């Protein structure tokens, strides 16, 4: 049993779905994505949580360049595979209320994108990684541009060009590593073994950093993100924010730091500062946002900034925090965008100031909103807490060890205050207060919506109460990776 099943099924599914008629396509897509989830769970059940890579497939691909179709799952990948396979059916569920024209294409693209992302998360070959990276980008571009809002054309092309720009630099970095590798392959373990000097590693670091920083996005490479999230159809936004940005984070953990540790440690402080600035900066911007989706977009930047900072701290707490936070952020942000999707579908507006009092007419919706919100602000016993706790601890340890004492940790920690400020402000203006003519007729959630919302809420709480199983999956792999890099290059 190799990981290839997981990689090829969605492609087949995408083709089949794309050929189906409206009305059937969404069910087929849901079916396939659930099948995918089941397969992932089977993998999980057979997965041995040690540091090894399992279910490996390794066949020659482009022999003249030493390129192999080489993929496998270790603890780090497993978490992300889970994230992808859990979120995709969830996202498909959230779009159930929409009647997209040319539905087959829409869901086909989503499934194709899933394939690309799974390739990214499992690839053990640099070339394959890059191919998956781009293969995930094309479908989302079309999803956003075909089914997006008014300004979609301008904004999506910017998004595409921007992220493509970053990834091309990464490609150069990968090629460079390949040419330096002793036996001329793109094998990641081969890359790990190399010892370039600081100068060259710095170049490699920047090549990767650009790609990942844009993808995440990290301040100041983030400006494509709010626009794109706002314009994209909700399913696309969820794919982007829920799963796709994790590609960048995953890349940092798997590809950037281990491949250029000296380069990374050379710029660690800078990267850290960027992450932390992102947290505060995006949070502050989120204060006064009028458009709900845009607000969530900025909050996502803040969260990702914290995740990045946790990874850049490069200790077990930080990286483990990032691992679990990736999963949790995925669930929460999908939930948040789902909330806004419901609102905008009913009321045709996302202007926070035009809303109010919805909690009064739609109590079930309000509860769902509140639970997801609490997850987002990281309240204990919701999923957001563990991640934030570990991330902040990672940042804290880093900042104590690196002679800046608590400054970085305090600034990063502001996220828990600012997060509460903008989220509660949004909740207050949208849900609380008296109803107005627009919101008075707001229908409470029911049917699929209710089911989906419940599912998200259950995930939020369940992962908050007992996160250890998830942490356990990646623990060995993360520990080994961190120790390996850390011990080889302690400064």
């Amino acid at each position, binding site marked *: 049993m190799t990981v290839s099943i997981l990689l090829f099924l969605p492609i087949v599914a995408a083709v089949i779905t794309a050929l189906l008629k409206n009305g059937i396509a969404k069910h087929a897509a849901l079916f396939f994505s659930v099948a995918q989830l089941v397969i992932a769970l089977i993998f999980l059940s057979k997965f041995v949580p040690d540091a090894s890579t399992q279910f490996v497939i390794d066949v*020659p*691909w*482009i*022999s*003249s*360049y030493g390129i192999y179709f080489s993929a496998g799952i270790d603890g780090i990948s497993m978490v992300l595979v889970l994230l992808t396979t859990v979120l995709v059916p969830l996202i498909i569920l959230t779009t159930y209320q929409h009647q997209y024209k040319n539905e087959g294409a829409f869901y086909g693209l989503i499934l194709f994108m899933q394939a690309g992302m799974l390739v990214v998360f499992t690839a053990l070959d640099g*070339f394959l990684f*890059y*191919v998956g*990276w*781009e*293969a995930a980008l*094309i479908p989302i571009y*079309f999803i956003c*541009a*075909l089914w997006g809002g008014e300004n*979609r*054309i301008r904004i999506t*092309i910017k998004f*595409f*060009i921007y992220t*493509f*720009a970053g990834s*091309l*630099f990464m*490609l*150069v970095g990968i*090629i*460079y590593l*390949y*040419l330096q590798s002793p036996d001329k392959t793109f094998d990641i373990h081969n890359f790990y073994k190399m010892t370039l000097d600081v100068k060259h590693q710095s*170049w490699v670091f920047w090549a990767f950093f650009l790609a990942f920083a844009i993808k995440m996005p990290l301040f100041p490479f983030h400006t494509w993100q709010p626009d794109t999230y706002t314009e994209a159809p909700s399913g696309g936004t969820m794919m982007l924010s829920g799963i796709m940005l994790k590609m960048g984070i995953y890349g940092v953990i798997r590809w950037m730091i281990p491949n250029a540790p000296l380069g990374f440690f050379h710029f660690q402080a800078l990267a850290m500062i960027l992450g932390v600035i992102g947290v505060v900066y995006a949070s502050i911007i989120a204060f006064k946002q009028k458009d709900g989706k845009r607000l969530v977009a900025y909050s996502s930047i803040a969260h990702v900034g914290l995740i990045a900072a946790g990874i850049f701290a490069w200790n077990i707490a930080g990286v483990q925090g990032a691992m679990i936070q990736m999963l949790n952020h995925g669930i929460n942000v999908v939930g948040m965008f789902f909330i806004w999707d419901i609102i905008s579908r009913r009321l045709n507006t996302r202007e926070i100031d035009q809303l109010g009092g919805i909690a009064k007419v739609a109590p079930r919706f309000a509860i769902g909103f509140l639970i997801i919100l609490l997850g987002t602000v990281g309240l204990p016993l919701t999923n957001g807490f563990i991640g934030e706790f570990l991330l902040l601890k990672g940042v804290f340890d880093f900042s104590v060890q690196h002679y800046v004492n608590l400054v970085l940790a305090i600034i990063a920690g502001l996220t828990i205050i600012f997060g509460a400020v903008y989220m509660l402000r949004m909740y207050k203006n949208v849900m609380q207060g008296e109803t107005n003519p627009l919101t008075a007729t707001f229908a409470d959630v029911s049917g699929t919506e209710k089911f989906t919302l419940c599912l998200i809420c259950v995930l939020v709480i369940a992962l908050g109460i007992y996160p250890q199983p998830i942490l356990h999956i990646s623990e060995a792999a993360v520990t080994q990776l961190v120790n390996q890099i850390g011990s080889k290059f302690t400064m």
Partner: protein
Amino acid sequence: MNTIIIISVLPIVLLYLGLYKAQKALLPVTVIGLLAALACAICQWTAKDTAAPIYTGMLLFNNFSVVFSSVTIVSTILILLLSKGYFERISRHTAEYYAIILFSLAGIIVMVSFNNLVMLFIGIEIMSVSLYILAGIKKSDFASNEAALKYFLMGAFSTGFLLFGMALLYGSSGSFNMDAIREYVVNHPHIDPMFYTGIALLIVGLCFKVGAAPFHFWTPDVYEGAPTLITAFMSTVVKTAGFAAFLRLFSACFQPLSDFWTPILLVITIITLFIGNITALYQQSFKRMLAFSSISHAGYLLFAIVSLGAASGNSVFVYATAYSIASIIAFGGLILVQQQGGSDNFESFNGLGKRNPFLAFVLTVAMLSLAGIPLTAGFIGKFFMFSGAVSRYHIGLVIIAVINAIISIFYYFRVIIAMYFRADERAELTVPVYYKVVFALSALATILIGVYPDLIARFI
């Protein structure tokens, strides 16, 4: 060798067919003849690549030649398949058009298998002279006339430099034979300055032929003015041949002197990339955009020569193949839109995604391939090129190339945007069966090569 013979004799046969008014037989005969030529070429392929020069060192039909002959022949076949009904609209002399295209192809086969500068020169001239004619076959069309004259004047001008360069090479090395020249380069501690100047002038001449800046000026105007099918031929087959010849000459003879000529080509490459990509950005005509894009692709192809190495041949081959296939789709689509929509502006592609989903899809694949997006052949080509350049530590060049690749996204995606995201009420285009076959084959090849490049990447 049989390939050259077949392709030289075939046009004469066609001319006779034309004489006897067998218009219907032209295309089938051409295609069959070309397939025979292709088969002959492929038969020459040997696993170990041990071909020896033939005809007193005039030709060397090695794997390199086989591969490039094949790709040019295949591209020609595909383009000719698009010509169904195309030439009839221009005039009655369809046989002559086929004949001249084939003459040109004969020149190209010579170009990719020369082993003597005389053959290179004759090959280039056969190709060029035929192209001067082809550019002007729409006799009553001003644009076509203008294209022909511009191409002709500038081509003849550049030929002068090419010849001057060859003369200087001859003057210093004493021979036109490539083996002798290589001998001279390798064994002479003091290379005559004349030889260097000769190389410089050869670079000028060849850069003109492949459309590299600042010798590219003819390209957009001629491409725009020439009949679209001819433009397709020029930008695919001719360009491939130009690079094959370029590469063959430089890898065989001048490699040891790369310290001298690399900087020149480096600068030319950079200028070409920027001129091609940036100028393409603001074009309103799809055809002209493709012309500029072809300039930028010339820039990428130059990478292989700048970072000359064992893999260069393969890189050029893969890149040129990818580029040719994608361009054929693009030009095929353009012909349909132009004929039935009346204009070659981007606007005429509006709403194509809805009206002609298949056409829009293959055009999208082509654009993605041209833009170098993974899982298409274009990406593999770019990947090979970048790898080559990085291996020679031309990191700066690669970064510039990356910037240009980013710019190029913008204009390639304009087509996609027009097709899918802009609505328009126009009638559906009819896509003839021949076109469908070409499109399907090309799109399939683009994706196949993109997914599994080993299919073609190991022939040289």
